[in-house]
């Protein structure tokens, strides 16, 4: 039982990280019809920004800030204007292909320029066990991850629901044409979405890299899990991505404990297939109009 509780908390911690990646992915899709097949690489790369910054002698916390800013600059603004911008009016396929190619470029760049080896990444809080309840000890690092991720998600929710800009962003996500008529500066909202996505990806990167190590090939798994979380939760809204992320995280950790390690990776995929078969609109999603 206590084992289960520990697994649950560990699962929620990784799940909260997955949720960060999934939220950005969902926002981007809704606001600018950009399906980012490089999302996993977006989560993989910022850790290397931080590692490079630390190599240059910048202290840990400052390096994290540098990583977030670099990520917003390159994976946010530059992605918006250099990659997505020229392709938006070209139909869906060129954009899909471009993000796939971008994923490969990011992955190969890290491998060729930095290293093909997995890199140790420092944790926010020390990896020391603390006793929560009698018999239930969990790692302080995990608590750190959970707290930081939840604060980030909470902050984002507050921003989206509680500020004027956030509500304008939501309006843009729901219906760009109507939003434009209502006087929402749609272009700026789309840029904000890209920046937020990059920021969330950087947060996820900083939180996940101490657990799985920073490696060029991490994007494949992380991207897949972000897609699965977004679809399982329901594509219509941010809370779907949060729920999906947490669910996948918990399942993933339970699978690691109770299913063979060889097939641990398969669990979220099977979940995805089940959801598409039996509840295609996602667990929290609303049924949309008929898709012809």
């Amino acid at each position, binding site marked *: 039982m206590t084992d289960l509780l520990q697994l649950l908390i560990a699962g929620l911690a990784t799940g909260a990280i997955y949720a960060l990646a999934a939220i950005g992915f969902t926002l981007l899709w809704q606001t600018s019809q950009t*399906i980012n*097949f490089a999302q996993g690489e977006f989560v993989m790369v910022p850790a290397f920004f931080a590692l490079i910054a630390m190599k240059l002698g910048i202290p840990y916390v400052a390096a994290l800030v540098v990583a977030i800013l670099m990520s917003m600059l390159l994976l946010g603004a530059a992605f918006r204007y250099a*990659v997505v911008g*020229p*392709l938006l009016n*070209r*139909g*869906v*396929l*060129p*954009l*899909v*292909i*471009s993000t*796939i*190619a*971008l*994923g*490969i*470029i990011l992955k*190969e*760049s890290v*491998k*060729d320029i930095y290293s093909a080896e997995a890199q140790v990444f420092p944790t926010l809080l020390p990896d020391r066990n603390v006793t929560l309840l009698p018999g239930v000890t969990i790692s302080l690092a995990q608590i750190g991850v959970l707290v930081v991720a939840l604060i980030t998600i909470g902050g984002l929710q507050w921003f989206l629901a509680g500020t004027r800009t956030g509500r304008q962003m939501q309006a843009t996500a729901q219906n760009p044409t109507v939003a434009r008529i209502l006087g929402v500066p749609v272009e700026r909202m789309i840029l904000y979405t890209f920046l937020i996505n990059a920021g969330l990806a950087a947060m996820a990167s900083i939180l996940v890299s101490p657990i799985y190590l920073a490696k060029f090939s991490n994007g*494949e798994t992380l991207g*897949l899990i972000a*897609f*699965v979380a977004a*679809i399982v939760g329901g594509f219509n809204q941010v809370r779907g991505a949060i729920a999906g992320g947490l669910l996948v995280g918990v399942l993933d950790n339970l699978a690691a404990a109770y299913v063979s390690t*060889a*097939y641990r*990776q*398969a669990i979220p*995929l*099977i979940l*995805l*297939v089940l959801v*598409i*078969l039996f509840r*295609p*609109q996602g667990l929290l999603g609303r049924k*949309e109009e008929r*898709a*012809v």
Partner: protein
Amino acid sequence: MRTFLIALALLVVLALVPADLTGLGLPYPGLKRYGTYILTLWLVTAIAAMGVNLIVGYAGQETLAQAAFVGIGAYLTAIAGKHGVPFGISFAASGLLTFVIGIALGFPALRVQKHYLAFVTLAFSVLCWLVFRNETAITGGVMGLRDIERPILFGLKLRNAQTFYWFVLAITAVMTFVLWWIVQSPWGRAFTALRENPLRAESLGVDVRLYTLLAFALGCAYGGMAGSLYAPLVEFIDPSPFALGPSLLFMLMVVIGGSGTFAGPFVGAGVAVLLPEWLRAWETWYLLIYAALVMIMMALFPGGIVGLARVSVRKRQP
């Protein structure tokens, strides 16, 4: 008729490329073993790419699992071959099995909305790779399967690189013709319609979901059959060429060749097979360069190489 003659001429030229013509008094020594191997690999890749083109270029969907389907065909053929099953049967079974899997994956995914097929195939791709890697007893795991026999055709052994090339060329020709026939038929018209405007196509009685599903399953079957040829070609298979990365490369190659054009997959497969050979000196940088080229291409010429060639031909004929 003209198309037919051009196709025939092309087939003859392709058949002669690896052949030693010095015996006929021509100063052409043909290709060495490795050159012939690369040429065969190009054909096999092109078959799988034709399938992707049907899915992407004609039906307007995305598939991220073509390499996995190639893998299914390859493993099936390799394993069946070790149990003495004739190649013809494995080849047909590869096509049939991948077609059925295509239906099973596509049916639920296409009920939902655009792009769901991409995610379902993505998941399937990873699942297949896990099975290829983990089911060591059947697939040999990371150690792979060795010494895959090349088929024997009516008592004629196809061990020789050149004979095997001709065999693959013949199959490619037939499969190209079949696809050409489909694309020229009313089905092709329905594909174009549902890609350009699914809503309108549906209102004209075109069962968009069914046609899309058929295109997807046929595309998967082309992948499976390409895999069935791939196994005896390379004679050794392990999970790595059937992972997610190669599936993504299939998408890229079709688009770089020119998606929705008939020659596109051949051109794209040519680029994908030859580029790593040319860039051998920069081995590690090859993927990076390739992906960067694709991105530039998407921004400047989304029609791919074939589209680009068409535009330049049209410009020259005012």
